[in-house]
């Protein structure tokens, strides 16, 4: 099925919720009676009906007028099904933005034409690059507020292209719109000739096939419900065939895949992304965290990373990568403020760190650029809260 997850990011008040409301309304994707219900609620609260209220279905949000959490909305356009994830623009809600964006295939970055690029525009752009989201559609919103002045659009476009280029992000298109008036979102604008509307541009984004490539199967758990000893997990890269010779990392043990277990019938192979169970030829002692491969891969305690502090930095957090975990220390070589993208001296919340992670245990991984699923990690504090996220560069 042709399905895409989109995340909409950008600075607070640049019009994300309004844009989503407009898409749903113009693409005729709202349930019957929905708009009427919102109009009625607005009347009760003494507010003017806004498209943004479609998403802000929580009472508190309506009162404050800002998006607190990631809301997911499903809509259909032509032959494709979309899920849009609305990510909050407020800096306090960066956790929600990351949660939302980490599930996306492509991103819409929204910029207010009147206010231009602001700190969350840059920070969110950085986070998109950290999360490995390559397809970016930029929407220059609120063009009605600048009387559809093309020079303003061109100026923002140029500035933004420079920032995104620095972050290695690929711009799919940059579209001038007015979500409020419905120009260039679903329907073409009569005010400007921009070539395509937002939805036309989204429709052009291709479906990326997961890379087949090298086998990586991190062991999630070992089940012994009956006489079988089943290793369960998910194929993070490549595919696994019954009967093939495999290598366990980091232990280095060699064996064969005796069988691929299923609930009702036996299988011959596990596909990329498939959760499955296997039985090994030898009765080896295997635990959660080992990775099944074909060839030796990187096993290190110290590696180079690029990470983002979602909460206040801590000196001895727990690193989690696939089903592995280890306590670690971070050595910063370069600290960058994510909103200005300028260098600084001390690590704080929302900073980017380029440096080294030193783990207590050996970690099995691939560079993020090679196999993304095997080269990204989170950092947790004592309370089990996610305080950072990063990618391994070497």
């Amino acid at each position, binding site marked *: *099925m042709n399905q895409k997850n989109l995340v909409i990011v950008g600075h607070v008040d640049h019009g994300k919720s309004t844009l989503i409301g407009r898409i749903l309304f113009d693409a005729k994707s709202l349930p019957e009676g929905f708009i009427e219900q919102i109009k009625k609620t607005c009347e009760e609260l003494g507010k003017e009906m806004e498209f943004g209220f479609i998403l802000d279905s*929580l009472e508190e949000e309506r009162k404050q007028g800002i998006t607190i959490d990631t*809301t997911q909305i*499903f809509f259909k356009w032509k032959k494709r099904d979309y899920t849009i994830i609305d990510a909050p623009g407020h800096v306090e809600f960066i956790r929600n933005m990351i949660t939302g964006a980490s599930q996306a295939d492509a991103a819409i970055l929204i910029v207010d034409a009147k206010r231009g690029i602001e700190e969350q525009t840059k920070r969110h752009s950085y986070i998109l690059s950290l999360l490995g989201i390559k397809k970016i559609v930029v929407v220059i919103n609120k063009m009605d507020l600048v009387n559809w002045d093309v020079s303003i659009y061109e100026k923002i476009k140029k500035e933004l292209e420079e920032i995104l280029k620095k972050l290695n992000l690929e711009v799919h298109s940059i579209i001038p719109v007015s979500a409020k008036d419905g120009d260039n979102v679903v329907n073409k604008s009569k005010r400007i000739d921009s070539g395509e509307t937002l939805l036309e541009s989204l429709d052009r984004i291709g479906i990326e096939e997961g890379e087949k490539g090298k086998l990586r199967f991190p062991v*999630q758990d070992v089940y012994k419900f009956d006489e079988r000893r089943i290793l369960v997990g998910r194929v993070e890269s490549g595919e696994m065939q019954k009967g093939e010779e495999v290598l366990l990392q980091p232990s280095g043990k060699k064996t064969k895949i005796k069988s691929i277990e299923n609930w009702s019938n036996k299988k011959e192979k596990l596909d990329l*992304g498939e959760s499955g169970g296997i039985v090994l030829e030898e009765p080896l002692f295997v635990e959660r965290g080992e990775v099944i491969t074909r060839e030796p891969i990187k096993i290190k305690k110290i590696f180079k990373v690029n990470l983002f502090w979602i909460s206040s930095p801590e000196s001895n957090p727990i690193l989690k990568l696939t089903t592995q975990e280890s306590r670690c220390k971070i050595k910063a070589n370069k600290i960058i403020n994510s909103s200005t993208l300028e260098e600084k001296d001390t690590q704080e919340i929302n900073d980017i760190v380029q440096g080294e992670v030193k783990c207590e245990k050996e970690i099995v991984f691939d560079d993020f650029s090679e196999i993304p699923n095997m080269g990204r*990690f989170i950092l947790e504090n004592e309370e089990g809260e996610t305080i950072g996220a990063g990618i391994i560069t070497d």
Partner: protein
Amino acid sequence: MDYLSELESKSIYIIREAYYKHNNLALLWSMGKDSTVLLWLCRKAFFGKIPFPIIHIDTTHKFPDMYKFRDERAKEWGLKLIVGKNEEALAKRIGPDKGKFECCNSLKTEALKQVIEKEGIQALLLGIRRDEHGIRAKERYFSPRNKEFKWDYKNQGTEMWDQYKEKLKEDQHIRIHPLLHWREVDIWRYIKKENIPIIGLYFAKEGRRYRSIGCVPCCSPMLSDAKNIDQIIKELETTKEAERKGRAQDKEKAYMMQKLRAMGYM
């Protein structure tokens, strides 16, 4: 892998994480289509035999078909079934006539609190989906609740890259939602693909069918001619009516669902 297999694999991964990371896990089963699919996925995840109990919160106001379906499946699938009732409230004859909010809160939420305490449950698998209701779209896959069942939705943690909440505070339990990313039509396509048994109330009789089922007094059937799964799928591909339109909790008051959920409603 096709789309339904992708949904399935993601859910099974989450179910296995739940089982690995949390002791005293249980599944909350309403016999509706979603929690029945979840139950099916758990059977798959553990190769036919689910290693934890299945809880049904019985308000005593369910459809007769639901009780029949529950007992037949429990036997056929060898489920460790626990039925939870708020006996005290039932003795006081609390029911929908005493107000729907009060009824739901006593017979469902309170009853669940009692079972959790009695059985020492620390983690609960639930079949909710993001596309069901605006507020459910705000959920995480792993969502901690305090003893009073309060959901601190304004202060939820980061959830990314298949790493899920593991550590709980002493008086917390965790709700786990492996079907969060499924849509209503996906559920029906999967039921068809896997040939999962489903309650007959979902199929149209005399021009009406239940799209969402709960308690008899608070569910009303919608106009529909969909008599089988194929027809339901077709209907869902074109409908613009909200799934829970027939459910009283959602429309009685503008924020009833939100209030119920903040108080611990499933």
